[in-house]
């Protein structure tokens, strides 16, 4: 419970400088490993950012499934006496996916195909995860500098009427 409370208190808010660094790390990884795409997802299932050939995937659904899948295997890990599994790998006929833990609250999902190898992906993903952890730690410590617009609450009503009906 304490860890949950700590994660809630130290919630991450992302700014342009964070995204630029993360995207740079992704681009470097994709070039080196030959992977198709990489997605950074938080454990609650929200997509943070992505890079690579992601057009054919619905990012919201993938993020939710990745988070759910990881959460389910974490419970298995606890039953086995482990804190959590830090790495998951699902192999397909043409494309495979590797999920890895990034810090306390995020996951990286890497999709790759037969044009590269699992070993190469694992080699470079370990380096990438270390860099991402560093970026996220710095983002966590930064004081919040931006806020939602003053009229956010007022505009919400109009949007809700548009989507759910007046």
């Amino acid at each position, binding site marked *: 419970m304490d860890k949950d409370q700590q994660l809630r208190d130290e919630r991450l808010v992302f700014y342009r400088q964070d*995204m630029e660094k993360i995207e740079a790390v992704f681009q470097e990884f994709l070039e080196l490993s030959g992977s198709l795409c990489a997605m950074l997802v938080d454990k609650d*299932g929200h997509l943070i950012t992505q890079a690579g050939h992601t057009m054919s995937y619905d990012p*919201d659904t993938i993020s939710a499934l990745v988070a759910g899948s990881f959460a389910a295997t974490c419970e298995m890990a606890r039953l086995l006496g482990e804190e959590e599994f830090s790495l998951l790998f699902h192999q397909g006929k043409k494309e495979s996916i590797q999920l890895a833990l990034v810090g306390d609250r995020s996951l990286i999902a890497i999709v790759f195909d037969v044009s590269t190898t699992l070993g190469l992906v694992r080699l470079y993903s370990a380096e990438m995860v270390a860099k991402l952890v560093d970026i996220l730690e710095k983002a966590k410590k930064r004081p919040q500098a931006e806020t939602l617009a003053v009229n956010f609450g007022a*505009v919400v009503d109009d949007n*809700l009427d548009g989507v759910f*009906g007046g």
Partner: protein
Amino acid sequence: MAQVSFANRQVSCKIVYYGPALSGKTTNIEIVHQKVPDNHRGELTSIATEGDRTLFFDFMPLDLGNVAGMNTKFQLYTVPGQVYYNATRKLVLRGADGIVFVADSSPDRFEATIESLENLKENLAEQGVDISKIPLVIQYNKRDVPGAVEISLLQSRLNPRLIPHFEAIASTGQGVMQTLKTLSKLVLDQLNRQYGARSIAGSAVSVQMKEVSLNAKNTSSAGTGKAPSRVDSETEKTIQAVSAVSAATRPTRPAQPRPVRRAAPVKPAASRISPPRSNKKIVRQVRNVSEIQEPTERHIGRALLLLFLIFLLSGGLAVLTWSLF
């Protein structure tokens, strides 16, 4: 836990439908999927058994569009309601920003409904969340069932705090959208309280100051130097609003009178004068000020008020000088 990204100008919240087995959670989300316009939602994904009983979760993304500059999204989940899927319910409940509790009005499901609400309370507590602190609405579904439990009895057992509740017949769509709309509003209101303009000392004023400088910019001409206008009424309103915010954040400071040194009203003209150079400086200074931490809130307020007066005086002086010559 809502995800906020000022980089992508995006906000993403998680809403979970909770309740006993077969209470109508999945039906709710299916109705939402049918009724929400295609451009505001994604596909409905269900991880279910062959008998269409939710095994892990149902999921559907919703896009509310641009809300005050932020692309606002919801992720809707349902949990499996059967008792032995409690471990899975906990996983899905993680990070929820709002909950719809779908109660079954069938008389033979009354006890199961009460147990499910207790289960929700326990699972939230296990994650360190107080049920009274999280946005929650109750939907009394299946109101068309013969012998449906009276609302007053349901309320007394399930809703002693009198949180928002709705009667529904989810299979026909009745009450579904109203339930979700109300919860969405509660979730976004809470988000606004956490990330909104007053949540950080000085930031409210910094946001408004940016608007002031932008308004002043918008009233400038391309340097034609023709007849000046009076200070833009929107700018004036913004200045008043910001002054009010400044005063509100520092209750011990006496309210500042509205600055009266403004440009004298003149005939409206097609073109306007350029704003004084000090506007840009003010924004830069305010931006720097807004990054200072809370302990200097009093100093921030004083500095900002002084900057306001300087801005208005210099603007007024410039207009006055122009009109004289």
